[in-house]
């Protein structure tokens, strides 16, 4: 017969001897972490469960946090907690099942920080386009620094580079990186920081998954470019950084443009601006010249107007000339008609006719006078043949008294002394009566 204590002591010795180092797989539950720092929990599977305790000294070595329901593979020894007579496994190491502990730790940290919003896209700041000073947080001995320097130098030969040298692996690495980030921030003139190292195992890259580093990057006022490992390696630093570069060289390329290109761009912009301005001026000048050309068309208009005026004057002159010529023609026609109707013809006719009339007058008058003269002479001749004085030719004479002229027929008709006139055949005689014989017969 044992006492409880004896039996319990025996069981404990037996269990501890038999199960001094065992591996056990199970699901964590009933996690309790009281103030002592020891962690108490239960490991269970579908049918059974076992109490487990992780003493503080072991607990602090855990890289990941213990969680309810986590499938774990543990190593430890069985013992019996005598006061309660319960057996339990005292855990030495706890590993998550399926993934490595580190990986889980990273996942857990990532989840936690993500919940805090540390990785939020909105927190990310744009990189300066033209940094003057680039801070580099990396190891001076790695290939990373050489790559970074070479790329930066090539791209931007006048760049100021400030290196904050750190260990990039090992216990101290995380803290150094965090401090370096703070230092570069505090330095003041740094425009962008590259933080990184060359590639390696998860373990090698561990410091870039450390919370202190992630938080330092998140807290950096200067934009941070992460360049950890190679393209496939992703750390929390990469998640929190403002830009994740796949390699240090890529980071260097990401933080500075190529100076020659910038200078070229400047030159190009200047040239383009100048060209645009010159084109603008040329365009305006052409426009202006067009305007000036359009303006000087006024001269053509003036010339046209002058020509029009001249044409009108020519027409005026033609018209007045035609009018005057027409007047002349009319006057000349009238004059020609007039000269055809000159009364001179009538006058000439008259001048010809009148002398004919006067000639006829004269002729008739001459004839008439000649007739009369002829008649008169004929009468005179006839008279002469009948002249009583014809007898005188035969010797008779006729005595006439003087002055009475009485023919003396009788001697008694006269007295002696009386003068008588004797009419002879030719001539006359004056006689004086000397005697008178009154003798009637001879």
């Amino acid at each position, binding site marked *: 017969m044992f006492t409880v204590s004896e039996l319990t002591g025996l069981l404990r010795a037996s269990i501890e001897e038999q199960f001094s180092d065992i591996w056990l797989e199970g699901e964590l539950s009933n996690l309790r972490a009281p103030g002592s720092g020891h962690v108490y929990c239960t490991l269970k599977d579908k049918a059974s469960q076992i109490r487990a305790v992780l003493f503080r000294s072991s607990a602090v070595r855990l890289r990941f946090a213990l969680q309810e329901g986590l499938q774990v593979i543990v190593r430890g020894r069985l013992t019996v907690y005598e006061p309660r007579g319960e057996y339990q496994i005292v855990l030495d190491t706890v590993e998550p099942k399926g993934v490595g502990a580190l990986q889980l730790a990273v996942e857990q940290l990532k989840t936690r920080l993500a919940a805090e919003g540390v990785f939020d896209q909105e927190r990310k700041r744009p990189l300066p386009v033209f940094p003057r000073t680039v801070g580099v947080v990396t190891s001076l001995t790695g290939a990373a620094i050489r790559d970074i320097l070479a790329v930066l130098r090539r791209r931007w030969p006048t760049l100021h580079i400030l290196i904050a040298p750190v260990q990039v692996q090992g216990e101290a690495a995380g803290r150094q990186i965090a401090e370096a980030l703070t230092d570069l921030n505090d330095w003041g003139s740094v425009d962008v920081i590259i933080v990184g190292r060359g590639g390696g195992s998860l373990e090698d890259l561990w410091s870039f998954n450390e919370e202190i580093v992630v938080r330092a990057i998140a807290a950096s006022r200067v934009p941070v470019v992460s360049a950890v490992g190679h393209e496939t390696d992703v750390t929390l630093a990469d998640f929190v950084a403002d830009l994740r570069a796949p390699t240090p060289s890529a980071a260097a390329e990401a933080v500075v443009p190529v100076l020659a290109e910038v200078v070229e761009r400047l030159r190009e912009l200047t040239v383009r601006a100048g060209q645009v301005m010159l084109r603008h001026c040329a365009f305006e000048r052409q426009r202006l010249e067009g305007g000036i050309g359009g303006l000087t068309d006024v001269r053509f208009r003036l010339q046209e107007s002058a020509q029009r005026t001249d044409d009108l004057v020519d027409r005026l002159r033609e018209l007045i000339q035609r009018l005057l010529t027409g007047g002349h023609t009319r006057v000349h026609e009238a004059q020609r008609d007039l000269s055809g109707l*000159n009364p*001179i013809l009538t006058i*000439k006719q008259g*001048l*010809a006719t*009148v*002398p*004919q009339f*006067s*000639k006829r007058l*004269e002729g008739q*008058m*001459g004839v008439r*006078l000649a007739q*009369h*003269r002829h*008649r*008169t*002479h004929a*009468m*005179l001749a*006839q*008279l002469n043949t*009948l*002249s*009583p*004085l014809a007898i005188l030719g035969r010797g008779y004479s*006729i005595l006439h008294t003087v002055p009475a002229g009485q*023919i003396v027929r009788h001697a008694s008709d006269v007295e002696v002394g009386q003068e008588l006139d004797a009419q002879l055949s030719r001539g006359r005689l004056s006689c004086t009566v000397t005697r008178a014989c009154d003798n009637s017969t001879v």
Partner: protein
Amino acid sequence: MAAVKFEQAMARLEAIVGELEKNDLPLDESLKIFEEGIRLSKNCLKILEEAEHKVEVLVQDKNGKKRIHAYSSGDAADEPSS
């Protein structure tokens, strides 16, 4: 005398010639009308001469005559028309 009409004188003269031809007048009568006839005929001649003279004077009026000749020569057409 010119007042004696030529035709009357001529008629008287013819009458005188008739009287004389009848030859039955006494000499003195004959002589008388013969003388009258002579006188008349002279008067007639005188009238005629005066008439001729007058005609001559009228016709020979210098201006008139000259022109009459100039124009009557029938060359009016050769004259300048104006």
